[in-house]
């Protein structure tokens, strides 16, 4: 069974540009989560989808971040416009019931 996949693995963009991150969860997992780890600090929650619905988006930093989950399958996280403080590693995780399985992350660098 394939694990959680994320694309791209790395992205370097300039301040003010737009970047879209993609996450493909484990097949059949209705729950999809986005997390972010900044500057070696703890992993912080961004939002949670159940199928295509946003269950909890209280961790989204501001309205420059937009997450979607089309048809309850893959999800995208768009940052527009990107700021320097958005740099970090963005993780996606999916779960069936309890265990959350993480993808390898997208390392975003905003210069």
């Amino acid at each position, binding site marked *: 069974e394939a*694990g959680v996949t994320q694309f791209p693995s790395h992205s370097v963009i300039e301040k003010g540009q737009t970047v879209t991150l993609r996450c493909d969860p484990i097949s059949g997992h209705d729950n999809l989560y986005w997390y972010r780890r900044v500057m070696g600090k703890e*992993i912080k929650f961004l939002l949670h989808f159940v199928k295509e619905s946003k269950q*909890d988006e209280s961790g989204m930093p501001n309205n420059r971040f937009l997450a979607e989950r089309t048809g309850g399958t893959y999800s995208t996280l768009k940052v527009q416009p990107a700021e320097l403080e958005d740099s970090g590693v963005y993780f996606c995780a999916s779960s069936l019931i309890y265990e959350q399985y993480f993808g390898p992350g997208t390392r975003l660098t905003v210069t």
Partner: protein
Amino acid sequence: QQPVQSPQAVILREGEDAVINCSSSKALYSVHWYRQKHGEAPVFLMILLKGGEQKGHDKISASFNEKKQQSSLYLTASQLSYSGTYFCGTQGTSGSRLTFGEGTQLTVNP
């Protein structure tokens, strides 16, 4: 509220034991343990769902004291492959977000 992990870092020789603690100020539904190696995905180790529950596989086990809102991860007879950063993630309710501690960096030397 973020759980507190201790110690922040530990260095072991192969074959030694270690304990990593995770404490929360809030009531918990579950505790999840992960290990992350540099540049890789956090790898799920185990989940503890009930107060007083203990789990383990191979030489890694964990306990969860619901009343004290604490969990501990036990690594016995450590191997080189155990090196990495260990995170505890806590949940207040089933299926909800994980709130992570800052991690414990474990280094196992030959």
